[in-house]
């Protein structure tokens, strides 16, 4: 029936071949479930292949900490687990405090974290900051560090999940944009541009397009999408081992082993998801670059080599949707990761597999319900 080779029937169909879709496929295949991933373009073509690779537990929203914590444990041994090279490096992550106000912010955060019995974020003083980051600007007064954090190579990580899933029997079909979903009896009928598929369960891992897939499942939610931008320099002499962020400024960067420095920070370009396109906003990139120079004077000698953006899904509260569908049976969502979903990849697969095979997860997912923005109408 379907144009491309591959099975047209599976127990679970995952829509979207980003890290969430691939990780979910891996966990399901590992449990012996017959799983098929439908990807409209190519696996890792979007956010999961082009992100900043930040594997960050530091500074997570409290609601995300339990998930992020487990995911961080998984990252430490992920290469062995998947028998692949994700490029993960544990480097610690430091958020720099530029002034006393930042220190106050950190102090408040620490109080909240300690109340919840989370102790993975440690405040450091100016001297320790300088020891860990000898090139930091003189005025920086301190910061906060999470030791387990680091980075990985995004497309390698996503591919690692894909390959591991495929070895366990998961099927991946690319070039299959899902256009229609229908309930027929106890099954889902999935129509793509090139074929028809059938499954018992559906998982929506459609990234920046996930609201469209959600609507096909009957769930409406206020997801938006945008195009966060990144730039990478040519090789520089090594000056920063930890991954670096800032408490109150849009700064984020990491220096890779080859000396190149990846600069992010959340500046957004222009997103055109209908055409898989993004356009860069150079003024904002320049502001990001000058931020990096403010914190690290050596960055004045940096030469930017490439700049790009990826399409990412955002929720109003910057928390993902990890949820069963409220309006359809046997349908699940994992999207809206709001520019920090890469780190969560390993755990999201486990949670989705639990929701499907055990009908519940041990994590409290109430903050991630798909209908959390629905208002009661009288």
């Amino acid at each position, binding site marked *: 029936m379907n144009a491309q080779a591959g099975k047209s029937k599976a127990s679970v169909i995952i829509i979207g071949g980003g890290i969430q879709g691939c990780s979910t496929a891996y966990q399901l295949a590992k449990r012996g479930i017959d799983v098929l991933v439908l990807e409209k373009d190519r696996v890792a073509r979007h956010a999961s292949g082009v992100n900043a690779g930040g594997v960050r537990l530091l500074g997570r929203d409290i609601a995300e900490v339990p998930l992020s914590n487990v995911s961080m444990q998984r990252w430490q041994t992920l290469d062995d687990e998947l028998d692949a090279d994700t490029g993960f490096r544990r480097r610690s992550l430091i958020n720099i405090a530029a002034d006393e106000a930042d220190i106050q912010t950190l102090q408040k955060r620490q109080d909240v974290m300690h109340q919840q019995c989370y102790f993975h974020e440690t405040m450091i003083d100016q001297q320790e900051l300088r020891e860990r980051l000898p090139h930091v600007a003189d005025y920086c007064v301190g910061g906060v560090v999470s030791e387990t954090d680091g980075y990985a190579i995004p497309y390698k990580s996503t591919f690692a999940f894909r390959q591991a899933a495929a070895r366990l029997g998961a099927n991946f079909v690319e070039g299959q944009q899902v256009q229609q979903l229908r309930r027929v009896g106890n099954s889902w009928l999935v129509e793509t541009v090139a074929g028809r598929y059938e499954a018992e369960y559906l998982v929506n891992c459609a990234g920046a397009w996930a609201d469209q897939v959600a609507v096909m499942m009957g769930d409406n939610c206020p997801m938006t999408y945008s195009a966060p931008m990144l730039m990478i320099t040519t090789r520089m002499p090594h000056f920063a081992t930890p991954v670096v962020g800032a408490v109150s400024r849009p700064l984020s960067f990491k220096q890779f082993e080859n*000396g190149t420095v990846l600069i992010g920070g959340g500046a957004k370009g222009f997103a055109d998801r209908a055409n898989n396109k993004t356009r860069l906003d150079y003024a904002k990139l320049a502001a990001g670059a000058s931020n990096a120079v403010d914190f690290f004077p050596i960055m004045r*000698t940096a030469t930017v080599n490439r700049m790009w953006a990826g399409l990412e899904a955002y929720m109003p509260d910057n928390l993902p949707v990890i949820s069963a569908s409220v309006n359809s049976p046997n349908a699940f969502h994992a999207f809206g990761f709001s520019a920090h979903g890469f780190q969560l990849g390993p755990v999201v697969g486990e949670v989705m597999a639990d929701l499907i095979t055990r009908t519940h997860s041990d994590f409290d997912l109430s903050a991630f319900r798909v209908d959390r923005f629905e208002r009661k109408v009288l």
Partner: protein
Amino acid sequence: MFRYLADDAPNKSQQQVCIIINDRKVTVPVNTSVWSAMAASGEATTRLSSVSQQPRSAYCAMGACFECLVEIDGLPNQQACMTRVYPGMEVRSQTITEASQAVPLAAGLGYELNADQEADHD
């Protein structure tokens, strides 16, 4: 190895500028490119390949290949073949490799290579 063709028929009115190439003062004709200035003064190595550490020099000499990157006034990755000399310019062959460590400077921009790298480079 390299010389200016103009030297064959010296034009006494040709203006000269003084620049510094790898810590050495040299005098070169005004408007010449950094690469010409380097080559004519016996400093044809623009950079070491950051991967293999092999010496590199100008290849296309017209701005396309980026083989000729040098440090100019402390800023690395400048194309020697596309940049004109100006008085007082400080040019340095670029030696940033995957192993380079930045050494914090007390003040001012930039970095210095540590002793090990200097040795490698010779």
